[in-house]
């Protein structure tokens, strides 16, 4: 503490004046007005915080630097690329989307800071696609207490499906329990009686995935369950244990880096089981890059040779399906707005979730309040870019309900079967969804 009184007073007074001045600069929130229903001629109004007559400002927290950044830092720029495409083609009822995504370094403390900033200072209309389970859990109660739409969280945790406690929060991607069930169902049908080992990340991602898997697979078929901590890359003992247990199939709920380390560790141990990898850690382009970099092998095709034959599931069209109308659309947008990044699974994810947001915004109406967006999603979102229907209703805030199985061939996903949908309960059946996926709109923008 400073010694003399006048100096201390001056310092404190100075601080107060400074902070007052700073406060005067930050704007206050505008009050919401009832939203228009979508009538063609209604004039555009500033119908909610973050919405002006010409813009819709939304915010997000993303790991742009730090441990979770490689790969995941492509998602927000990809969503933004889709928004730029929409903005260049008429916007949402004429409004342009302004997407402000801030770096939280995958640290909940920073997530809290940036989300408070986005909501209290920047007055964003909604928080969109906030990435990560521990990070987003830290802010979801605050976002809900401010009645800000918290849409399409980038995490497959079931925690986002809590309409009673988190009424404004919505998941998007296939949750890990459903994913585990679909993988388990495939193994049950195609590898009957084979010994299965499981390698999973020791958090809700791996545990929920394992839970879903055991809903489908007989207990006796799983010979070993090994987990890893994402901060420790030494996984030799776990892989050796899987080998010792005689696993013929290894199911992995791993992030891409650990899928790659697992594969290389298996090579070192001359252990060559059939790999079944969760969607989270199976993007062939990301994997090939990681494998080449970890093994320090620059030989062309080295990465692809190691991913060959990996079985996985997917809830978005594969970038290898060049005749798919969605992939054609995304290729076009990618070339125009995002050519610096490869069109890999993360970019596909960002573009797709961006599309879903635009769908929801069109449905929310011409002059939407925040509640209008919540109501629009509770009323259901048409399937669009994803391969299975959404679960959205006022009592279910899960997103995508199903996936198709695929195998990696020459660095691309090749579907091996139709789309399967299920729920997240232990007994819920897995059924084929024969409804064909709708084609992408010719304009590339969902119709209102």
């Amino acid at each position, binding site marked *: *503490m*400073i*010694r*003399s*009184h006048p*100096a*201390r*007073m*001056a*310092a*404190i*007074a100075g601080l*107060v*004046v400074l*902070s*007052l001045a*700073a*406060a*005067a600069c*930050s704007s*206050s929130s505008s009050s919401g007005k009832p939203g228009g229903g979508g009538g063609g001629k209604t004039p555009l109004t500033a119908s909610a915080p973050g919405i002006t007559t010409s813009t819709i400002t939304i915010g997000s927290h993303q790991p*742009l*630097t730090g441990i979770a950044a490689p790969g995941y*830092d492509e998602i*927000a*720029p990809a969503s*933004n690329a889709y928004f730029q495409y929409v903005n260049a083609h008429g916007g949402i009822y004429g409004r342009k989307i302004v997407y*402000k*995504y*801030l*770096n939280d370094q*995958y*640290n*909940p*403390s920073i997530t*809290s*800071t*940036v989300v*408070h*900033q986005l909501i*209290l*200072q920047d007055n964003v209309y909604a928080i969109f696609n906030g990435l990560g*389970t*521990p*990070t987003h*859990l*830290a*802010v979801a*109660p*605050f976002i809900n*207490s401010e009645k800000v739409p918290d849409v399409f969280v980038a995490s497959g*945790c079931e*925690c986002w499906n809590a309409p009673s406690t988190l009424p404004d929060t919505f998941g998007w991607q296939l949750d890990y329990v459903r994913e585990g069930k679909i993988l388990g169902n495939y193994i049950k049908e195609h590898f009957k009686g084979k010994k299965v080992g499981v390698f999973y990340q*020791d*958090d*809700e991602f791996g*545990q929920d995935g394992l839970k879903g898997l055991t809903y489908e697979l007989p207990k006796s078929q799983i010979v070993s369950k090994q987990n890893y*901590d994402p901060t420790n890359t030494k996984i030799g003992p776990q892989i050796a244990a899987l080998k010792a247990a005689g696993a013929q199939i290894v199911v992995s709920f791993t992030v891409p880096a650990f899928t790659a380390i697992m594969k290389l560790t298996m090579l070192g141990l001359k252990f060559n089981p059939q790999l079944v990898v969760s969607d989270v850690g199976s993007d062939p382009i990301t994997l090939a890059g990681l494998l080449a970099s970890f093994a320090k092998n620059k030989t062309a095709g080295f990465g692809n040779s190691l991913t060959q034959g990996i079985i996985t599931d997917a809830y978005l069209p594969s970038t290898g399906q060049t005749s798919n109308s969605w992939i054609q659309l995304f290729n076009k947008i990618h070339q125009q707005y995002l050519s610096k990044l490869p069109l890999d699974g993360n970019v596909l994810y960002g573009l797709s979730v961006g599309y879903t947001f635009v769908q929801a915004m069109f449905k929310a109406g011409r002059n939407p309040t925040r509640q209008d967006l919540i109501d629009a999603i509770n009323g259901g979102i048409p399937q669009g870019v994803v391969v299975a229907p959404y679960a959205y209703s006022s009592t279910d805030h899960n997103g995508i309900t199903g996936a198709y199985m695929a195998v990696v061939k020459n660095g691309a996903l090749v579907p091996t079967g139709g789309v399967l949908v299920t729920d997240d309960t232990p007994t819920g059946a897995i059924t084929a969804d024969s409804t064909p996926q709708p084609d992408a709109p010719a304009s590339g923008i969902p119709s209102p």
Partner: protein
Amino acid sequence: MNSSPDQIFIGAANRLAPWVRRTTGRRHVALAVAGAVVLGLASILLDQYRDYQMAEVAASAVAVAGLTVLIGLSGQISIGNGAFMAVGGYVAALLFMHLQWPLIAILVVSTLAAAAVGAIFGVAAARLRGPYLAGATLMLAVALPFFATRFSGLLGGDQGLGFFVTVPGFLGATFSPLRWQAWVNCGAALVAMVLLANLVRSRIGRSWRAVRDDEVAAALAGINVARMQILAFIISAAYAGLGGVLLAVVVGTVSPSLFTLSLSIQLLTAAVLGGLGSLSGAIWGSILLVIVPTYLTNVATSHGLTQATSSSIPILAYGLVLILVMLAFPRGIAGGISRLIGQAPLSDSESPTAPPTSWRRRSPAADRKEKGRT
């Protein structure tokens, strides 16, 4: 805004001055009361985001204060105080979840829990010096978060535990939760600061400085060196623990990714930026740590830089600020401020005169000068 609250406040302070000057303890209390008035007014006048930032600064300042006393006064180093913050935060969340204790009891008990862990570690720490102590505390910061995933049933694993402080009923239903959090955090921080300021000025504080400057001389003067070092470690851990609870109040949850190694390093940075050993420096360092990244991100995004570039700028600026402050004010911001306003040389408790001697031997001349002053 008019400045009348400040004028009233300064007038009242002047009338109280004779009473206040009589003892150090009273002065600290008066200063804290004045601080409480200013912060209370500020939180009412300013918008909710400033409330949030005030709560953030308060949480950080408490943890940094504990660390700056440990390093600047007792001459030990800790790169592991983030781990003690985790202890405080997790104990608070567990008490909140399972026992629904009142907030004040949670604050006290979690602080004591962190102090207890600090005591165990302090016994080991008192045997280590310099880089070895730094290494041991570093180990603590790296290892402790793993408990949360190892005992995920109790500690919630990667998701962590929720800790939501609700506004008490008497303030009314419309009272902002963010303002209440700011009040809780600033109140707790002020009380903690008064206690620490008094401790630093007491016989214990003098003993710490004696131990820091020369362990042999201190022992010859009758000071139990090991006990003093352990005590400093306990105090530092307790303050880190309280800081951890306050951080949990701000964030609303505790999880392993909240208490990473980088948090411990940040505490160290804030202590060095503010001025090692200085409590006001702990506040300055914390303000800088909270305000600068947000401000720079805003500046960077508003100047049309791409998000990828602007998100890296705060990290870059962080390093630059550290280098610049160290070049301009080697004794940190607190030292720099007293130099700028032409204050008489600071007393030892306000700012260290040099890095602790456990890292670097001081010249006999410096020692003589130091002794002449005390």
